[in-house]
């Protein structure tokens, strides 16, 4: 019996589990998946919770609903990987051996990395929306808020879903307009990047949306600390920005066990070949999704495109061939922009997000880098696709590698 071990049963790990459970011969392969939590969160939905669009019930399901039959599931944290021994030690003291390992343990926020962030104002006037606790606490705060300075701050890159902070301020503009207090809310978008987004053309177009929606952009701001007493964030070069409510995107890091295993970079992300998705230095370990150091966006769509490439390369490797499929860094993101509209971007390692049309058989085309109602429906529809198709490893009507069709240079 050959053993496939998957670490992490989030979006990426669950997709891989379903693909391989369908494909690999049960008489030849045993498949085991490990995760520390029993609940699956629909993380793209966290964004909507502070604005009362979704509540907690809309974004949670038991992980077991998405596990196929005939696989072993272990609920435990991970102590460390011993890659030279092909062995993983779990927090529950179990020792698992493997022939092939897929790492899909994602990224978590670390607000404690910034001085003062988790002091007395944490989850009182300072919130995150990358955890269910943070998103729910912020919803409670907004319900009773009478207005003031709303500051959204990105601590440092890379972060999971680099468009979510923009969506947050767009939705805040809509939410406070609906509640009749938009004139009392000063919305600021404070980022360490030189503009609204990571890539130049999208950055300029999205920057124009910020201006149009009366949201102030402060670029090149690298936060050093939070001054709780005076409700200010302070940058390394001593620029200060006051807030009444701070919505922070804290430092993102890979899981602690990565460090204990000696396998990560300074943020515990795992050095991974950006085309083959094999972990650098090993010929039987793959990594997928947010846990890698790939120069792509950390997002569910990226994990989905990677899953097709990883699947093909895995089948090559177990049959003794060189991995042939190449990931191009494809990302496809619906940006909710408020008032029932959305913006779509589609890009990869080498082609930045461009304007134009995005053809999609059966439903499309969608408009790229433009605000439309259709793009909003794309986002709404995606939650159904996520639970019913994507996690189960089924085909979606969209290619893994990016296409130039419809894009304007």
């Amino acid at each position, binding site marked *: 019996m050959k053993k496939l071990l998957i670490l992490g049963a989030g979006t990426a790990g669950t997709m891989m589990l379903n693909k391989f459970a369908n494909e690999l011969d049960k008489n030849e392969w045993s498949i085991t998946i490990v995760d520390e939590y029993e609940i699956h969160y629909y993380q793209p939905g966290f964004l909507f919770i502070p604005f009362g669009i979704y509540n907690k019930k809309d974004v949670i399901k038991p992980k077991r609903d998405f596990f196929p039959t005939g696989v072993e599931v272990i609920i435990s944290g991970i102590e460390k990987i011993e890659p030279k021994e092909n062995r993983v030690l779990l927090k529950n003291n179990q020792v698992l051996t493997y022939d092939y390992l897929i790492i899909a343990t994602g990224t978590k926020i670390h607000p404690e990395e910034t001085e003062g962030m988790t002091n007395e104002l944490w989850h009182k006037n300072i919130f995150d929306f990358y955890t269910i606790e943070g998103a729910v606490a912020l919803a409670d705060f907004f319900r009773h808020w009478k207005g003031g300075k709303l500051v959204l701050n990105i601590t440092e*890159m890379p972060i999971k879903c680099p468009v979510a902070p923009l969506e947050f301020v767009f939705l805040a503009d809509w939410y406070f307009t609906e509640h009749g207090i938009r004139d009392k809310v000063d919305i600021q978008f404070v980022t360490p990047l030189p503009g609204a987004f*990571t890539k130049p053309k999208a950055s300029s177009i999205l920057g124009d949306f910020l201006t149009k929606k009366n949201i102030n952009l402060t670029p090149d701001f690298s936060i050093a600390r939070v001054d709780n007493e005076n409700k200010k964030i302070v940058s*390394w*070069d001593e620029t200060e920005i006051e807030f009444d409510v701070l919505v922070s995107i804290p430092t993102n890091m890979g899981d602690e066990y990565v460090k204990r295993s000696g396998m990560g970079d*300074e*943020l515990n992300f795992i050095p991974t070949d950006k085309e083959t998705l094999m972990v650098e230095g090993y010929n039987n370990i793959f990594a997928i999704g947010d846990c890698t150091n790939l120069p792509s966006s950390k997002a569910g769509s990226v994990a989905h495109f990677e899953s097709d490439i990883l699947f093909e390369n895995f089948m090559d490797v177990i049959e003794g061939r060189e991995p042939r499929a190449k990931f191009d860094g494809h990302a496809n993101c619906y940006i909710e922009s408020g008032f029932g509209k959305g913006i779509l971007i589609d890009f990869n390692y080498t082609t930045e997000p461009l304007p134009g049309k995005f053809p999609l058989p059966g439903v499309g085309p969608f408009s790229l880098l433009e605000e439309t109602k259709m793009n909003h429906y794309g986002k709404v529809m995606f939650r159904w696709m996520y639970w019913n198709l994507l996690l189960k490893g089924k085909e979606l009507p969209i290619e893994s590698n990016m296409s130039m069709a419809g894009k304007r240079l």
Partner: protein
Amino acid sequence: MSTIEIAGKTIELDADGNLANAADWSEDLARELAKIEGIEELTDRHWQVINYMRKVYEEDGGAPSIRKLTKESGVETKELYSLFPKGPAKKSARIAGLPKPKGCI
């Protein structure tokens, strides 16, 4: 791709505005590149960072992120920002003749 004129020489730049050819780099060129970034004089502390950047690049083939800089260069984050205002990793990489650090996605 663009070019700049420095001390009578034409230097090629990559899409991010960093040196296209590592072979063009010299300490004199670094002083000129620093001036373009608004740093009039490179002190010993600047050089400690620049030399560290070049060493990492030689070993890893990539410019280090700000976190790695803070951890390993011997210069703390606060001082890095005063030496290379706004973007220490980005600016010191440019002056050191290296491509933009990978962390700046």
